[in-house]
């Protein structure tokens, strides 16, 4: 009797008097929730999760997940984490989903969402999000997650955009046009810098960052049916104009030829940290990275502005981000996945990682988005454009990457490279 009393006292002490110990019980490396919980939801996530390499963000996510599972004590989350090779991970998950082996709930990159939609492998989230929540989404986000039957197939919870970063001590005024940027790049070279840096290697970011220039001209990659049109008619002219602009930056020396080897936003941070560049095209999230990397005095020199357009009025910027979607046919699991998207990611996750929300109202709800920088980013979303939700997009991107390398390295002239890219894309389109 005495022993039973002591055991009960110890158990109650552990459960009620020590939340930290309880939290540890609930969260292991690959499980959130009690081991013996009757229901299991398999969840596959990126580093936007307790798997984040930044310990503070990882702990923040762990707390969000533990708080979430405490509200759903009958459930446990079986966690799986993706590698950094996102393209391959998403392709594998698509194959798994078609075979019926995909996780119940997973992170799907917004630019491949259409591939999952056309295969009809995504559960319907429509019943689990209110009309107000859906109406509050930015229009490009709402369109991106809605299928042709107007059903919500995923919840797009964060977005981003590209801007021009500059060192004010070397480039005092924000370049407004393509010509301004070229002049600023050449001026920075005179100051001993290596000119404007941007992604131009074989890498999705190279395509996406450059597309802002094409979109600013009003160019389209695909038509309404998803057929590639970038190599025809007016689109071809606009495409060549945007491509020639980049070539001119390199040929004139305003950008170094080594841009064809840059395939990682971290390389741009490295150049800023080394003080070898004063201008680069990067993502909004890099502002926080620069702040963490540079000395405060040095960071104070850095600022950002919208990507210059062909004219000051013609602006565009690429917007991406991640969604949460369910592959399950079990309604309880689909609802649980939708709850996870709402409670962890839609708002708290944005604030934790300072990743831009996809709903206007959330910018006012969290203090982190009240900073001048984040307000400016939010305003810039007005010029945001997402990649087309067409199954052929990954191949269009692949061809643009090849074309970019050929043109900037001087192997091919723009028109020759564009014709080759369009021809290869159309061949791939026919095979899909």
């Amino acid at each position, binding site marked *: 009797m005495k022993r039973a009393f002591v055991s009960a006292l110890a158990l109650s002490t552990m459960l009620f008097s020590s939340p930290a110990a309880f939290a540890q019980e609930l969260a292991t490396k690959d499980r959130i929730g009690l081991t013996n919980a009757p229901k299991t939801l398999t969840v596959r996530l990126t580093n936007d999760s307790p798997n984040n390499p930044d310990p503070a963000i990882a702990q923040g996510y762990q707390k969000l997940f533990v708080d979430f599972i405490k509200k759903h004590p009958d459930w446990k989350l079986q966690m799986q984490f993706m590698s950094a090779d996102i*393209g*391959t991970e998403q*392709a594998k998950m*698509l*194959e798994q989903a*078609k075979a019926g082996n995909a996780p119940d709930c997973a992170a799907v990159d917004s630019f491949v969402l259409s*591939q999952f939609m*056309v*295969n009809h492998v995504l559960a319907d989230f429509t019943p689990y999000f209110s009309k107000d929540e859906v109406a509050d989404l930015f229009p490009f986000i709402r369109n991106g997650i809605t299928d042709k039957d107007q059903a919500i197939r995923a919840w797009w919870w964060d977005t981003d955009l590209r801007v021009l970063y500059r060192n004010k001590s070397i480039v005092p005024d924000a370049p407004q046009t393509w010509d301004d940027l070229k002049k600023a790049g050449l001026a920075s070279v005179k100051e001993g810098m*290596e000119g404007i840096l941007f992604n131009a*290697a*074989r*890498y999705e970011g190279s395509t996406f960052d450059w597309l802002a220039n094409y979109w600013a001209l009003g160019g389209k990659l695909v038509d309404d049916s998803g057929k590639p049109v970038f190599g025809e008619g007016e689109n071809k002219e606009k495409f060549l104009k945007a491509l020639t602009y980049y070539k001119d930056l390199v040929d004139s020396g305003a950008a*170094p*030829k*080594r*841009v*064809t*080897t840059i*395939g990682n936003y971290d*390389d741009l941070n*490295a*150049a800023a940290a*080394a003080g*070898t560049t004063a201008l680069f095209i990067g993502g909004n999230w890099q502002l926080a990275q620069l702040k963490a990397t540079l000395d405060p005095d040095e960071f104070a020199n850095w600022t950002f502005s919208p990507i210059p357009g062909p004219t000051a009025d013609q602006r565009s910027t690429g917007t991406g981000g991640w969604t949460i979607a369910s592959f399950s046919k079990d309604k309880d699991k689909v609802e649980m996945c939708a709850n996870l998207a709402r409670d962890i990611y839609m708002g708290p996750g944005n604030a934790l990682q300072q990743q831009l929300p996809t709903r206007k109202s959330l910018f006012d709800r969290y203090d982190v988005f009240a900073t001048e920088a984040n307000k400016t980013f939010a305003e810039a979303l007005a010029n945001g454009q997402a990649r087309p939700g067409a*199954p052929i997009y*990954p*191949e269009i*991107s*692949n061809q643009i*990457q*090849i*074309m970019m*390398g*050929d043109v*900037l*390295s001087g*192997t*091919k002239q723009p028109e020759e490279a564009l014709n*080759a890219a369009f*021809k*290869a894309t159309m*061949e*791939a389109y026919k*095979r*899909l």
Partner: protein
Amino acid sequence: MTLIAIEAASRPHSRSFMRRFAGAPLPWIMPVIIVIGIFYLYPVIDVFRLSFTNATLIGDNQDYTLASIANMLSSPQLPDILWATFVFVGGSVIGQQILGLAVAVVVVRGEKRGLFGTTILRTTALIAWVVPGIAGGIIWQMLFSEAPYGALNSILRLMHLPTVAWLSDPAIAPWSALISNIWRGTAFSMVVMYAALKAIDSSLYEAAEVDGATGSQQFFFITIPQLRAAILVNMILITIMTLNTFDAIITLTGGGPGRATEVISLYVFNIVFRNYDLSGGSVLSVLMLIISLGLAVVYASFLPKEDER
């Protein structure tokens, strides 16, 4: 019935079972055949099957057709891809073979003379082999970086030499990829050559010395002929390994600039995972298999026959 009684009763039966299959190898190798069949042959057969379809990762329906084979083999990109592959594989095989043999000879000679550092040399070479391809790609990307702080170019600047566009020049990038692959694969060749060098009968060298043969004569008329089998087997192995290498290249250049370093294994990866084209990827995989087997047969034909040894 006692245990002994059971054994006694079953013994004639089991003896006849053993006798029946004693001379027949099939029952004994059947487990191996099943395992190889499931884990090795089935995927190969499925790749052959897929190459005769129009299967994609996106579409549900797949029909049997020869169109995928015709499309892939007539693709205008294929000649450039095959040329990049030929340079990469050929250069890697020659480079790894020569360097591997050189390091092995140095290590064996060093060991014979009890020189300090031979173990360090052997271990250092092996470290490159242990490093995963992706990590090796990152290491070489940092070395070849054309940023003002890039490692190799910084050394060149210190020596007042012109810098090199290691990765951004389409004419130089394939050679940079080749250098990184030779660095990585030399250790494997060294291990094979080291074992073969150790197996050479020392009396051959003693006899040569008595006859007054120089060091280079001993190398070319004793060492190389004695290593013939090892060299050919090594060539088969490193050809196949290099043909399948794409992890180091994808990290180093991603296949760029343009398609300058896109070898066939990386092309297959891109066709399947970027273009979602399963049948196209399968056709190219079969092509890779044919190239590998063809080269292996050519190399094997030069292997010394049993009566030549």
